[in-house]
């Protein structure tokens, strides 16, 4: 026996009620004309009656209204300007180490100055994220770098100690990583580097000079007997077994050899991939190896922005963070946190 299912009750059509509501609303609106409707009606009547007094009065009301609003807008601008001045003071105090570098020629446009300042802030943020000892080393390194930039070359006496080189290289890598976070597109990143390079020409520290072979010579670390612990830590942080240190060193030193066969090239790529760039695609490691080789062999006077961009975009972010962690002790998570904050 099939029971006839009861017909579902048709829900009451909400439309009429809605329509009623809408109609009531419209009626209400129609009943109560808006401010401008009222004004228009009165204005039309005043025009018809040739009532100049009404028009004058409305004019006075509006001009007083706009003058009051203008005053309030000025007050708002003043409040914002006061906040900006106070905020800028605190920011400049935080990045006072870099303020000398910020001094740009008056001819530099405001937007370029601001861009340059932001990149320098990234450098300051990177430096200040190091522990106290490493910050001290980085500062000492910066002093030497300062001399090298002024004289145009690294003097024998001013060559970095190992901890200075590690700290400063780490700060450099972190700064570029922050810049990459801001410009994740390769072309945009290259444009940003070009802009940085052009603007920095008007400063005491032109990027071209900083990346010149003669200045970068300062990174040829003078490793003394006291540095054995640092070297051992560096090597073990990269996971290179003590027994393999010499073979890894031999393999990598071959990167600048004039003659190199495919087997040697592959060995270098494998070694670099295994210990330094484990997360980077092996083809990209090959690209990086070839790039470093070209730089070594061609004796280019400086690392140009295209080469720098290529290097940064061919290395995986994880390997980049690992390199920074080994050089500076700033772990990936700390760095990622900072990058997220900067973004």
């Amino acid at each position, binding site marked *: 026996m099939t029971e006839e299912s009861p017909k579902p009750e048709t829900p009451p059509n909400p439309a009429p009620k809605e329509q009623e509501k809408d109609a009531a609303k419209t009626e209400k609106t129609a009943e109560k004309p808006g*401010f401008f409707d*009222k*004004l228009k*009606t*009165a*204005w039309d*009547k*005043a025009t018809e*009656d040739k*009532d100049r007094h*009404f028009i004058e*009065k*409305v004019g006075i*009301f*509006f001009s*007083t*209204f706009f003058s*009051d*609003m203008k005053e*309030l807008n000025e*007050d*708002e601008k003043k*409040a*914002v300007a*006061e*906040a*900006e001045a*106070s*905020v*800028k*003071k*605190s*920011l400049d*105090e*935080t*990045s006072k180490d870099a303020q000398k570098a910020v001094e740009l020629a008056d001819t530099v446009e405001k937007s370029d100055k*601001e861009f340059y*300042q*932001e990149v320098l*802030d*990234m450098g*300051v*943020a990177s430096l*200040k*994220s190091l522990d106290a000892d490493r910050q001290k080393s980085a500062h000492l390194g910066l002093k030497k770098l300062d001399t090298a930039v002024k004289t145009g070359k690294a003097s024998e006496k001013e060559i970095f100690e190992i901890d200075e080189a590690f700290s400063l290289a780490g700060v450099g890598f972190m700064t570029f990583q*922050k810049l990459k976070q801001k410009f994740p597109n390769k072309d945009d990143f290259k444009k940003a580097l070009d802009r940085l390079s052009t603007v920095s020409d008007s400063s005491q520290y032109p990027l071209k000079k900083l990346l010149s072979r003669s200045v970068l010579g300062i990174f040829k670390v003078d490793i003394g007997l006291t540095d054995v612990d640092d070297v051992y830590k560096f090597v073990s942080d990269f996971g290179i077994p003590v027994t393999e240190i010499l073979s890894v060193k031999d393999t990598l030193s071959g990167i600048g050899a004039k003659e190199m066969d495919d087997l040697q090239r592959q060995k270098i790529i494998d070694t670099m991939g295994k210990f330094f760039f484990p997360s980077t695609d092996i083809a990209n490691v090959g690209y990086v190896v070839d790039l470093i080789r070209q730089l070594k062999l061609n004796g280019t006077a400086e690392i140009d922005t295209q080469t720098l961009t290529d290097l940064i975009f061919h290395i995986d972010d994880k390997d980049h963070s690992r390199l920074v962690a080994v050089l500076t002790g700033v772990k990936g998570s700390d760095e990622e*946190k*900072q990058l997220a*904050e*900067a*973004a």
Partner: protein
Amino acid sequence: MRKNNWRKRLKVAIMTKEELKRAIKKLLETSKISDHLKSRINILLGVMDETALNNIYTSLSTEKDKVDKIAEKKKRVELKYQVMVEKLSDMKSKQ
């Protein structure tokens, strides 16, 4: 106003560094300071010392108080003139 300043200083004094950072980020969402300064704050926020954080927080929250008050005043002024012009228009229409 003086009472408010005293309260604000007390509030800042008991805030931790992390709380200050969060509060600054929140204030930045509505602040009218330039994008450049906002960007600089975001870059340096992670490494600022407590004094700098306190100063920035106080500056931004003072700005917010002032701007909010001005916005209220603007509303009141707008309403005042609207009512006056409306009354005038009503009178004219009824003539």
